[in-house]
C-alpha cells in the first residue's frame, strides 16, 4: 500500500523526505501522464508521493537588485504573465505546451524532471541560472549545468527539493527564441534555440546561445561564445556546434534534421545580430 502525503509546510516536507523516499509531486503534468491507466482507474504510481502544490512558501516571483528569483511552484503561465520578468524570459514559457497545461505545470518541475525536451532548461542555461536545493540540514546553490547530468538525471539528493531558481539580471539588447515541433502549440520540441546578446554600438559584447532538445542536455558552448565575440567568425562557431551535436534519431525527429536546422537557424540569427539588427 502506497503512502501518499500532503505536508503542512516545507519543514514537514523536508522532515518526511529525510526519513524515506517520496516522489515530489508539484503540477503533475508529467507524472500523471507517465503513470496513466485506463479510464476511471487510479494512476499506477509505484512510489510514495509527497504532494506540494499547496505550499505557498514555495511560490512566487521576486526580484532583487541583481536577480530574478523564481520559486519552484511558479507555473509557466505565471512566468508568461509576470510584470517583473523581461520579455526574453517570458517568451519561451509562452510557447510551452498549451494554455491549460501552462496553468498547472511548474518551472521547478520542468527543471527537476530534466527531460531532454524540457524547454525551460536551455533558457535557464543561457541565463546562467543558479538553483537552490534545500534539505532539512541546510541548502546548497548550484549552477544549472552542474545540476543536470543527463536525460532525467540530476544531482538532487532524495532528501532535497529544488526551492528556487536565481536568474542574474542582465540588460540584454536583444534575444531570439525559436521552438520547432510537429505543430505550433502543445508539442514536444524537435529542437529549440535561445540566444541573448549585448552590443556596444555595433560590437557584440556578450552572447549566449543554447540549443535544447537536440542532445540529452542542452548545448551551450561557453568558450566558443567568447571566441565568437573576439573573431566574429560564425562558420567557426557552427563547426564547433556540429561536433557538439550527438543527438540520435527518435520519435520526434532525426539527428540530420536537428543538425541542419539548428545550424541554419543559428547562422540566420547570428548574421542578423552581427549585421547591426536588433
Amino acid at each position, binding site marked *: 500500500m502506497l503512502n*501518499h*502525503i*500532503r505536508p503542512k509546510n516545507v519543514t514537514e516536507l523536508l522532515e518526511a523526505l529525510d526519513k524515506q523516499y517520496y516522489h515530489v*509531486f508539484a*503540477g*503533475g*503534468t508529467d507524472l*500523471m*501522464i507517465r503513470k*496513466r491507466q485506463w*479510464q*476511471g482507474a*487510479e*494512476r499506477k*504510481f509505484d512510489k510514495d*508521493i509527497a*504532494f506540494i*502544490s*499547496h505550499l505557498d512558501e514555495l511560490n512566487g516571483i521576486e526580484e532583487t537588485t541583481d536577480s530574478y528569483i523564481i520559486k519552484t511552484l511558479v507555473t509557466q*503561465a505565471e512566468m508568461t504573465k509576470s510584470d517583473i520578468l523581461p520579455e526574453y524570459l517570458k517568451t519561451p514559457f509562452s510557447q510551452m*505546451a*498549451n*494554455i*491549460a*497545461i501552462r*496553468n*498547472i505545470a511548474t518551472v521547478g518541475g520542468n527543471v527537476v524532471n530534466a527531460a531532454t525536451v524540457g524547454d525551460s532548461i536551455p533558457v535557464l542555461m543561457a541565463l546562467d541560472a543558479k538553483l537552490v536545493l534545500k534539505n532539512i540540514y541546510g541548502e546548497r546553490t548550484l549552477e544549472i549545468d552542474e545540476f543536470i547530468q543527463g536525460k532525467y538525471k540530476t544531482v538532487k539528493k532524495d532528501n532535497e527539493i529544488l526551492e528556487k531558481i536565481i536568474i542574474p539580471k542582465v540588460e540584454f539588447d536583444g534575444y531570439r527564441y525559436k521552438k520547432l515541433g510537429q505543430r*505550433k*502549440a*502543445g508539442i514536444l520540441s524537435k529542437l529549440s534555440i535561445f540566444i541573448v546578446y549585448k552590443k556596444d554600438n555595433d560590437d557584440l559584447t556578450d552572447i549566449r546561445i543554447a540549443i535544447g532538445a537536440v542532445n540529452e542536455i542542452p548545448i551551450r558552448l561557453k568558450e566558443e561564445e567568447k571566441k565568437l565575440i573576439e573573431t566574429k567568425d560564425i562558420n567557426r562557431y557552427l563547426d564547433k556546434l556540429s561536433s557538439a551535436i550527438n543527438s540520435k534519431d527518435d520519435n520526434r525527429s532525426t539527428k540530420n534534421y536537428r543538425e541542419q536546422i539548428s545550424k541554419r537557424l543559428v547562422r540566420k540569427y547570428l548574421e542578423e545580430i552581427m549585421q547591426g539588427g536588433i
Partner: protein
Amino acid sequence: MRNITFTLNGEKVTVETTLSRRLLDVIRIDLGLTGTKEGCGEGECGACQVYLDGKIVNSCLVPMSNVIGREVQTIEGFAKTKAYEKIEKAYIEEGAVQCGFCTPGMVMATNALLKDNAHPNSKEIKESLAGNICRCTGYQTIFKAVKKIADEEEK
C-alpha cells in the same frame, strides 16, 4: 481514503477519496457530472477542461490533493452563466458542434480566452484553442463562432 472538501459550481462538496485520484474521475464518477469528458487522458485534447480557481486546466492531470479547498467550475456550472449563452448561440449559428464530444472543453476554452481578451484576432483564437482537439469539424466553424462573439462584442 480521506475526506476531501472543495467548492464545485459554487457549492461546497466533500468526497471520500485519495490524494492521487484524478479530479476528472471524482467529477464524473463520484459526483455524476458527465459534461466533462475524458478523451486522451494525457492533457492533449482538452475534452476534460474545467476551471480551477478560475483558470482553465485539464482535469485528467489534476490529483485531488491539488483541489483541496479550491474552487472548481465544470461545464454544468458554467452553463448557467450569461457568458455561456453567448457562446452557445454562436456555436449553434456557425455549426461549430458535430459529435459534441469536444464541445464542453471547447466552450470552456473559448470562455477562458474571451474573459481576458474580448476582441481576440484569429491567431489568438487559434493559440487559445490549441489545447483542444476536435476530430469532426476541421475547426473552421469553431474559429468562426469565436470570432463572431468577439466581433459582436465590438459593436
